[in-house]
């Protein structure tokens, strides 16, 4: 479903955020990316839907080469849902409008279709009663669930999560992770950058460890947690697992 080949990202010609990353994600697979802050994990994720254009390398999603100049990027981005650390809901629109906007403009759905889809997704994330609220009236956890519903309403083939619980108060982390777990069980192809090792253990098919812009280790979560084959991976987990 996703294939990154030799992806590198350099900022200002000098800062190498990602170095020669290769990653393949199969359909229905859940891949969790972990690593120290500033290691380039978010950049790798953002390269998948070309929010960050790689300096070199190719990105293939669903058979389309995104790094090909002839590809219609706008169209393909709709197939890849993205959930951000800061939610990035549109503050001037209600929850309903947030979720219907792209359905109408990109998918060309009618008002009724978009509305029905919106309500279905809001049910799914457990807050159908908030459709007419503005984002600022919701808690962080609710806002993030709206953001997830907004992406799902586009019926994407892949969902990307960029530290979706890092900006949340502790008591709201679970409600967001529960939604993500359910999504994983339903067979959604997911790539998740997170510090929630519990989620990684429960949902990940594979764990990717990134350090200093390089993919150091890839493997089943249990194995990478308990028996990492690289010293850098071991040092990282020694610091965060307890």
């Amino acid at each position, binding site marked *: 479903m996703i294939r990154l080949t030799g992806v590198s990202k350099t900022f200002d010609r000098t800062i190498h955020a990602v170095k020669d990353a290769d990653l393949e994600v199969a359909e229905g697979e859940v891949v969790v990316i972990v690593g120290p802050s500033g290691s380039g994990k978010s950049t790798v994720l953002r390269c998948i839907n070309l929010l960050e254009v790689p300096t070199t390398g190719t990105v293939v999603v669903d058979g389309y080469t995104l790094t090909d100049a002839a590809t219609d990027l706008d169209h393909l981005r709709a197939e890849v849902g993205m959930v951000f650390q800061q939610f*990035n809901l549109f503050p001037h629109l209600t929850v309903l409008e947030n979720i219907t906007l792209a359905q109408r403009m990109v998918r060309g759905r009618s008002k009724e279709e978009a509305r029905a889809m919106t309500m279905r997704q809001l049910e799914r994330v457990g807050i159908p009663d908030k459709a007419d609220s503005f984002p600022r009236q919701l808690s962080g956890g609710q806002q993030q669930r709206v953001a997830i519903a907004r992406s799902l309403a586009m019926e994407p083939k892949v969902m990307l999560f960029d530290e979706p619980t890092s900006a949340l108060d502790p008591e709201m982390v679970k409600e967001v992770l529960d939604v993500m777990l359910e999504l994983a069980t339903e067979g959604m192809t997911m790539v998740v950058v997170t510090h929630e090792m519990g989620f990684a253990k429960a949902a990940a098919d594979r764990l990717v460890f990134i350090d200093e812009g390089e993919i150091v280790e890839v493997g089943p979560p249990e194995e990478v947690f308990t028996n990492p084959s690289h010293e850098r991976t071991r040092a990282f987990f020694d610091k965060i697992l307890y």
Partner: protein
Amino acid sequence: MSDYRSTRDGRITDERPWWDTFPWWSVIIIAVLVWMGWQIVIDEDYALAWERIIPGLGLTLRSTVYAFGIALVIALLAGTGQMSRNVVVRNVARTYVEFVRGIPMLPLIFTVALIIVPEGTDLLNKRLEDWIGWELSLSFEMRATITLAVIYGAYMAEIFRGGIQSIPPGQTEAGRSLGLTRRQTMRSVVLPQAMRAIIPPMGNDFIAILKDTSLLSVLGALEITQRARQFSASTFKFREGYFVSAFIYLCLTLGLSVLLGILERRMTRDRKGER
């Protein structure tokens, strides 16, 4: 930390008495305006000055509205142009803004109204004549108004740019990741939010244009200031002439800023406390 003061019974409190927060300044201004208005009613010199100057009001208002309208279009083009992906567009926009903002208004008025506009129309007319036998000629009033628009277009371009750039990049990223195009994201996500940062300073510039139409007097346009000059020079009643023109300007600008305040309050009441 909040401000505090001591009460009569020797405590401190954060409460401020009414006379501390009362807008005395507005009482003073209103008193001055009422006094001026009264002078115009009872004093025949002031009345004559008023009679001679007030016909300029139409021109002042008309050139303000035209200049603002044209400036708005220029500003939108130059403001978004500076953020364009096209290297030529970006640099043309930037050059215009930097040029205009770096030159004082008076020399710019002379340059644009006396050199650039006439030469521009000449050039245009050479072509137009052959085609349709019609000539474009612009009055001094129109030239001056265009000049104001060109100047304020640059200032307002910066307001547009600042307003758009004040919206966090995450908003654009969210729009793009949902599959919206650049244009759709700009129109449906960024601009509606930016308008709230754009409208108040735009209103201030409207008032500033109104005041700066007084500069059109140097080109002989018969607006308020020019009429005040002519009246004063011909009657030697300088005080009456200039007081009356100041009175008219103050009524206009204060009235406008009250309207602007109402508009701003309405906008913030709408959607208080974002994010």
